[in-house]
Each structure stands twice: as structure tokens, then as C-alpha cells.
């Protein structure tokens, strides 16, 4: 008995090598920070650790099992999200190097890298968590780091304010979530998602308490993906945080939130007997699809409509990221593997374009000292390369061909139409028409105003432009040749469904 447990533990350690690599790097960065007190060393170590973790991840590709007695699943689905998180982490680390708001003010950067890694670790665990305790702990690991990071430049008033709002709303929603978890535990007698599922399958009748506790748990995840009505924090935190963290929150933490949301719904409530690989039947006839559809419509509509009035680019992108969460939710509504695949494809492209947009906004902010749309007037003629790239990212976010964003929308709407949610698809496409208006406002200010204003060109370092290019070129190329991404996503829809 004792040996079996030890063997299980040791065997499982091999399955979390990428997480361990991040954990080790986390510790090493703390120590290195004390010894060398050098930001370059910290940065180098962090990047190294991320890459090592990535190498381990590649080594484990295709694994489809569970570790630590069903605490976390190691499956292609979580693997995909781990790649997304790692790529985001790498971009954020490199991006931080260019960020003047982090470097100029004599902010000590050791903890910064450490916390980014801590956040990545939390997200890694969240992507695979299959136990309520594990979900809670992973979520909190991620949240705690992000609370501090969002207020990292604490000399800026709005930064600490953003942080405060984030921590209040975050604690509130995680409180609601664990209250839901506690009731779920009481009703089903287990914290393990697989065991909850088999209990529900054996006692298959509609229980309001299960439904409400499920809703409360989903509320906690909805907070992370900033779905309406749990989006209140998003604009403020996005505007107030350092822009690197804003970008990180808008992509990576949202990805982790989606991963756990999908896994929770699929593992807990789907009816193994009635479901095929293609479509999942929800047990107890709890209308999760309808709940999520309402959530999706509310999220994208509100995000898009409020974004119309924004004058600050960062804040506009915050609302746009709410809208994108709404589109992505449609992929869960349909409850098919096609829908799941579309979420993965969309997320990958969303990572490219959203990071790209945020980096350009950051670089512009360094030169013109503002993130206001009005200050972008004529910037296209002062910084043609970056402005063109920002235009590309915004066009892609709108979802126009030949950019990657269009493919994301195509696959997503394809999945929605395929499952017969016609009204949802119509609302979705109308929303993307609305979104054109506010993205085009930025484009208008950059190119249509103050043409040839003769204000001389803005100089940007080659490295920073190269970083944007690294995101811009795939945005265009994957818009034309998206086969590999589709194939990768298709291989990654497999969720570990228990033994």
C-alpha cells in the first residue's frame, strides 16, 4: 500500500516535468536575484527556464494520462494550452525588456520575472487540473501573482488602483467559486471531477443545488476569462497595469481560464454513455449550452458596444478582449470537438494578434507618451512600419481576410453553424461588424488624419521592430496557410476522460 502510493507519486513526477522546470526556475531566479542583483541575469534565467520547460513539453507530446491520482490530467488538450502559455510567457519576458515604464522608474525587476514565472506555473497547473482543490490552488497561484504584477509599477497611481480593484473582485469571485465547490462536494461526496461525474451519472436527475453550485464555479472561471457579468475589473486593470502584464492577462490567463472552464464542464457534466467523441450530451438535462450561449452573447455584445466609446487604446483593447472572450465562448456552447478545435485555433491566432497590438501600443507610448487615440493622429507617417503592423493586427482582430483572425472566425462560426446554433452565429457576425468600427477608429487616426504632417519620423530600435515582426508575419502567413494550425488543434482536442 505504502509502496504503491510512493510509486504513484514518483511516476507522476515524470509527468509534470515542464511544471517542475518552471518551479525550479522560479526558485533559481529568487536566489540569483539575491546573489547577482542583475536584471539581465534574471531575464536570461527566466527565458532559459521557459525554454527548458518547453523542451520537456515537446518531449511529452501525445501523453494522455492522469498524474497524482487524478489531481491533474496530462493530455493533448492541456498540452496545447501549455504551449500557448509558454509562448505568451516568452513574449512577455522579451517585451518587458523593451518596456520603459518598468525600467525607467527604478523598479526592481527580480520579483517581476519571478512572479511572471509563478503565474505561468499556476496557469500550467490550471490547464490540467481535474480536482476541485487543484483547480482552486492553481487559480490562486495564478491570481496572486497577477494581483501583484498588475500593481507592479506602484508609483503610478492608477497602477495600484488597478491592483486594488483586481484583488477585490478576484477574491470575491474566487470566494463564490469555492462556495460552489463546497456545495458540489457536499452533494456528490467528492472533490475529484471524475468521481463527481460518475456520481451524477449514477443519480441522474435534475438537482437545482448541483446546477447552482455549477454556476458558482463557472462564475469563478468567467471572472478569469472576463465574461459578462464578471468583467468589471477588466478595463480598469488592463488600463492601469503595466502594458506587458495587460497583454499577458489578456492572452495567457484567459487561455488558462478557458482550459479549466472547458475541462470542468466536459468532465463533470457530460454523459459518457450518450456522448460520442463528436458531440457531448449533458447529463441531467442541465442546459449548460443555453447558459453559456447567453453568457457568450452578453459578453461579446457588451464588450463590442462599450468599446465603441473608448478613447484610450489600451482600454479599447480591454473591451475588445471581452468581446473576443464572447466569441470564444461560442466554441464551448456547441459542445462538440469541432467547437473545441475552433477555440484552440482561435486562441493561437488571438495570441499573435493581441500581443502584437499591445506591443505596438507600448512602443508608441514610449515615443509619444500616451495611449490616447487622439494622440495617434498622423502616426502612420511618422512610424510607417509599426503603424502598418498595428493596422494588420487590428484588421486581424476584426476578422478580415487574408489575416489569421479571419481563419479563427471562419472555424469558429463554422463550428457554431455546424451544430445548428444559427441565431448565435448571426449575432456573432453582427458583432464582428460592430467591432470594425472601433478598430477602424485607431486606423483612421493613424493614417487618415494629419497626412504628411512633416513631423519627422519616430525611431524605434531594430530589436523591438523585429519582435513585432515575429508576431506580424505569422498573422499574415497563417491567414493564407493555416493547415498546420488546424492539424495541431485537431490533435489537441483530446481530453483525458478518466480510466
Amino acid at each position: 500500500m505504502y509502496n504503491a502510493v510512493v510509486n504513484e507519486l514518483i511516476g507522476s513526477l515524470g509527468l509534470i516535468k515542464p511544471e517542475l522546470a518552471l518551479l525550479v526556475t522560479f526558485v533559481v531566479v529568487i536566489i540569483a536575484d539575491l546573489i547577482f542583483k542583475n536584471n539581465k541575469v534574471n531575464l536570461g534565467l527566466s527565458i532559459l527556464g521557459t525554454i527548458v520547460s518547453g523542451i520537456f513539453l515537446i518531449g511529452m507530446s501525445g501523453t494522455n494520462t492522469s498524474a497524482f491520482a487524478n489531481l491533474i490530467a496530462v493530455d493533448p488538450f492541456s498540452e496545447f494550452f501549455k504551449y500557448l502559455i509558454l509562448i505568451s510567457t516568452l513574449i512577455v519576458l522579451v517585451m518587458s525588456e523593451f518596456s520603459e515604464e518598468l525600467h525607467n522608474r527604478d523598479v526592481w525587476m527580480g520579483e517581476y520575472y519571478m512572479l511572471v514565472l509563478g503565474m505561468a506555473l499556476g496557469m500550467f497547473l490550471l490547464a490540467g487540473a481535474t480536482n476541485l482543490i487543484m483547480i482552486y490552488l492553481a487559480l490562486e497561484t495564478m491570481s496572486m501573482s497577477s494581483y501583484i504584477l498588475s500593481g507592479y509599477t506602484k508609483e503610478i497611481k492608477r497602477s495600484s488602483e488597478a491592483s486594488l480593484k483586481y484583488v477585490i473582485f478576484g477574491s470575491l469571485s474566487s470566494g463564490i467559486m469555492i462556495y460552489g465547490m463546497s456545495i458540489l462536494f457536499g452533494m456528490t461526496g467528492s472533490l475529484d471531477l471524475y468521481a463527481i461525474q460518475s456520481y451524477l451519472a449514477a443519480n441522474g436527475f435534475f438537482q437545482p443545488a448541483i446546477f447552482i453550485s455549477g454556476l458558482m464555479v463557472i462564475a469563478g472561471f468567467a471572472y478569469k476569462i472576463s465574461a459578462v457579468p464578471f468583467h468589471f475589473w477588466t478595463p480598469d486593470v488592463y488600463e492601469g497595469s503595466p502594458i506587458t502584464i495587460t497583454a499577458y492577462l489578456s492572452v495567457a490567463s484567459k487561455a488558462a481560464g478557458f482550459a479549466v472552464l472547458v475541462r470542468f464542464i466536459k468532465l463533470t457534466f457530460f454523459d459518457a454513455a450518450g456522448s460520442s467523441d463528436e458531440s457531448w450530451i449533458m447529463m441531467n438535462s442541465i442546459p449548460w449550452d443555453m447558459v453559456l450561449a447567453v453568457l457568450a452573447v452578453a459578453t461579446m455584445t457588451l464588450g463590442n458596444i462599450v468599446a465603441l466609446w473608448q478613447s484610450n487604446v489600451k482600454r479599447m483593447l480591454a473591451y475588445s478582449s471581452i468581446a473576443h472572450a464572447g466569441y470564444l465562448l461560442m466554441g464551448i456552447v456547441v459542445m462538440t470537438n469541432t467547437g473545441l478545435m475552433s477555440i484552440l485555433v482561435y486562441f493561437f491566432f488571438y495570441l499573435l494578434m493581441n500581443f502584437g497590438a499591445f506591443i505596438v501600443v507600448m512602443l508608441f507610448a514610449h515615443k509619444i507618451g500616451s495611449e490616447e487615440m487622439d494622440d495617434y493622429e498622423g502616426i502612420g507617417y511618422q512610424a510607417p512600419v509599426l503603424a502598418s503592423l498595428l493596422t494588420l493586427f487590428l484588421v486581424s482582430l476584426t476578422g478580415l481576410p487574408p489575416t489569421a483572425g479571419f481563419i479563427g472566425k471562419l472555424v469558429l462560426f463554422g463550428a457554431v453553424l455546424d451544430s445548428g446554433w444559427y441565431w448565435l452565429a448571426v449575432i456573432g457576425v453582427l458583432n464582428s461588424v460592430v467591432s470594425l468600427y472601433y478598430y477602424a477608429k485607431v486606423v483612421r487616426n493613424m493614417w487618415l488624419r494629419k497626412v504628411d504632417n512633416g513631423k519627422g519620423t519616430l525611431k524605434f530600435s531594430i530589436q523591438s521592430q523585429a519582435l513585432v515582426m515575429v508576431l506580424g508575419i505569422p498573422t499574415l502567413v497563417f491567414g493564407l496557410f493555416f493547415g498546420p494550425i488546424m492539424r495541431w488543434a485537431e490533435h489537441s482536442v483530446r481530453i483525458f476522460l478518466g480510466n
Partner: protein
Amino acid sequence: MSGTFNILGVGILTWITFLPILGMIAILAIPSGKDEISRARSLNYFRYITLGITFIQLILTLVVYSGFNFSMPGINDASSMQFIERVTWISVTGLPMLGDLKIEYFLGIDGISMPMLLLTAIVSTLAVFASWGIKKAAKGYFAMYLLLVTGMMGVFVALDFFLFYVFWELMLLPMYFLIGIWGGPRKEYAAIKFFLYTLFGSVFMLLVMIALYFAVGSFNMFDMMDPSKFDQNSILAGFGTSWRYIAFAALFVGFAIKVPIVPFHTWLPDAHVEAPTAISVILAGVLLKMGTYGMIRIAWPMFPDAVQYFNWWIGLIGMVSIVYGALCALAQFSVGKRDLKKMIAYSSVSHMGYVMLGLAALNTEGVIGAIFQMFNHGTITAMLFMIVGVIYDRAHTRSLDDFGGMANKMPVYTAIMTIAFFAAIGLPGLSGFVSEALVFLGAFKTYPVLTVISGLGIILGAGYMLWALQKVFFGKLPERWSGPWDPTGKIYKNDDINYIELGGLVPLAIVVIYLGINPNPVIGMMTSSVNHFVELIRIGGNFAGM
């Protein structure tokens, strides 16, 4: 397939479509220049590269035309398309539910696309002349211009719905910039209005495209026209079902916004009035045709049952567009700023209504008339907008009140303008007459009442065109224009139209006159396709037997 024309191993249609992209890259690579002299030199490079590229494109199009086989129908028959280029573009196999996703790079032309190809090549070459005066951010202008040309050409040669859609959307952004940067006072409003309207239409097209993809399992247009390819569980399978009507209506709205037909036309006057001359020319000359082309290429053959169901309504919409557009054009004489350009913009709405009426006729005369009208409207309206551009550049006003007695001041200009205006009225001997006559001939057989009411459009058209002609050219020359346009003589050496402007207008005038006398070169190439098309739609496509 009539021969394969390859240049350097690449098909000629690909060359025609993507040559402008090469030109765009070349233009982007040339620096704008720092000082006055180098800037002027770069400007000339930009102009001549653009002109050269579009001219080569025109030559290649003529090569295609010379090799074009008039007897092959095309439409829903892939084997009788010509100059086919077909390569697998994206292939992902074994997807869950989606099965095998396959998108092809599939180009080809038939008797419907050939006239449009010619039209696009002619108009985009000649519009470069109208762009000669562009000085502000010229690099961006010519780069965007060439990108726009690629988008337009691509729409007319694509035979894969996905590819078609990509090209369709590709021209939105350049158009937005071309109106928005180089346009008139309300350019920002006009540009975003154009963008939003078109996107609104095309997202519905996107949904129908996806639904059709699920029904047939590929994006190939011919598969979508073939009922045997339809999955019988799909909502779009069958014949005359309400889902098919809804899908057709969604497609129709997507294309109708582009045409534009009443009530989706309100973006057009704004876009035309604010756009620079060359862009108005392109917009009226080619872009509007993409809407009707899309109907003929996609909406009609894919949903013949719905066409039959809605046909009277389509005819009605055509009639309303004709009369309403003409009335709006006429209203320019009584209200507002009496804008000459706005009048021509509304005349476009009216003239595109003839195309709809001709399509609704659903017989050979009517449809030939409709397609020929697309071609003629392209050339004639291109002339009209260039003509307005000429006088606007000099007088800096387009108000009808400001003009009069120009005939003495600008005799050559007057002659050209008279040809264009008479062609727009539909005077016999000019190309507009032939197509309008065919449309009425065809439509009268099908919907006599609608046709008779539409005849009002001709009378109103003659009214506003002649009135405008009289306002501008006859009567007394206002005091303020009595001197030369340009006292310094730097820009305009004499008062009359200059050679660059003539370079744009004269070839179009020749086309208009020649096709008025002998329309066969254009009508000949579409006859067999149109016959096939009419037959196909009349019997309800291949769907009828289902």
C-alpha cells in the same frame, strides 16, 4: 480548355491577378525622397510603375481575350471553363466532423467573367491617368491602388468560394484608405460608411458560404451548384426549402449592398462624392459590378429555386432602383448643393437597376442586356466621373450653379462630355443604347408592367443628363471663369482638357462608340454562357429533378 497560357510556368490568370502585388512591392521599396527634386522623381516612378503594371495587365487580358473560346458555356460546368488553374491550397484531412478540409486555388473564366476582366483591365489602366494629380502621400496611394486592382481581378477569376471571399474582402481595406486619405471634406465618414456597409453584407455571405461548405464538403463553386454533391442531411439540401430561401436572401443582401440597389444604396453617394476622381472611376467602373457578378456567378446558379421564388421581387427591386435613383439624380437640381458628382452617383444607382431588371427577365436577351449593361455602365460612368474630375480640378467646385457656357472655353472637353452624357442617356449609336434596349426587350416578355414603369427611368435619365449638360456648357459663362484657369500657366497651359486627361477619356470614348455600332465583340463572348445560364435557372438548375 482552350490551351494553357503559361508565362514562366505560372498561369496567365495568376499573372493578371498578382502582377499588381509585385508592383506594390516595388513601389513600397522605392523611398519617397527627402528633398523636392527626389520627391518629384519618386512620384514619377510611382506613376509610371502603376501605369506600366496596369498596362501589362491590359495586354495580358487582351491575350486571354484572343485565346478565348466563345462557344464554351462555363457557369456550372467546370470542364468548359477556360484558362483553368487549379492547385490544392489548403488540405487538412481527418478533422472531427468537418472531415477533410480542402481549399483550392482555383481560377478560370467563362463568358460571364471575360467581359468583367476586360472592363477591369481597361478601367484600372485608364484610371491611372486620373490619378496623375495625386501628390499627397503618393507612395501609399499607388500601393493601395495596385492592391485594390489585385482584389478586383481576383474576384472575377476565382472559382473557389473561399478564394472569392478572400479577394472580395481584400479590396475593402485599400478602398477604405483610398477614400479616407485622398478623399474630400467628409472622407472619414464616407470611408467608414463604405467599409461598414460592405462588411455587413459580406458577413452574411460568409455564413452562407460556411453553410454551403457543410452541405457539399468543399468550397468549390461547381460542387455547390450540383445537387448530387449535397449531403441530404444538410439544411441546404433539397429544392425550394425555406432554409434555401433564407440562404439565398442572405447572399443576395451581401451582393446587393455592393451593387448597390435601393434600399442599401445610401453609402454610394457619400463614397462617390468624397472619393478622389480615380477612385470614383474604379468604384463605379468595377466595384459595383462585383455585386451583380457575384449574383450571376454564385447566388443564381447555387439557388435557382430561390431565384424563381423571388424573381418578381428582384424585378421590382430593379424597377425601384431605376426610378428612385433617377429621381434622386433629378433632385440634385432642386435641393442641397446641386452637386454634379452626386447626380452621377445616383445615376449609377439607376443604371445598375437595369442590370437587376435584366437579370429578373430570365431570358437570353435580358441577361445579355444585363451583363452588357454592366460593361457599358463601367465604361460610361468611368468617363462621367473623369469628366467631373477634370472640371473639379480646375474650378474646385462641382456645383451646377457655378457653371455655364463652358462650350466656348473648353471645346474638346465639351465634345467628350457630350458623348459620355448621350451614352448615359442611351442614345442609339452609343453602347448604352444596345444594353438598355436588350434589357427592356427581355424584361418586357417576363414582367411587362415592371418594364413599362422602369421606362420612366429612361425619360428621367434624359431629363437630368440633358439638364446638366445644358447647365454646364450652354448659357452664359460666369464672370469668375472668364479668365484662364491657371494664370501662372504652371499646371494648366491652356483652358481646355490636357493630354493626360485625354489619355484616360479618349480610349473609353472609342470603346463606347465602337460598341454602340458593333456590340458583337462583347456580346459574342457571353452568348453561349448566358444561354446556358438562363436554361439552368429556368429549369431550376440541376436541383429541379431532386
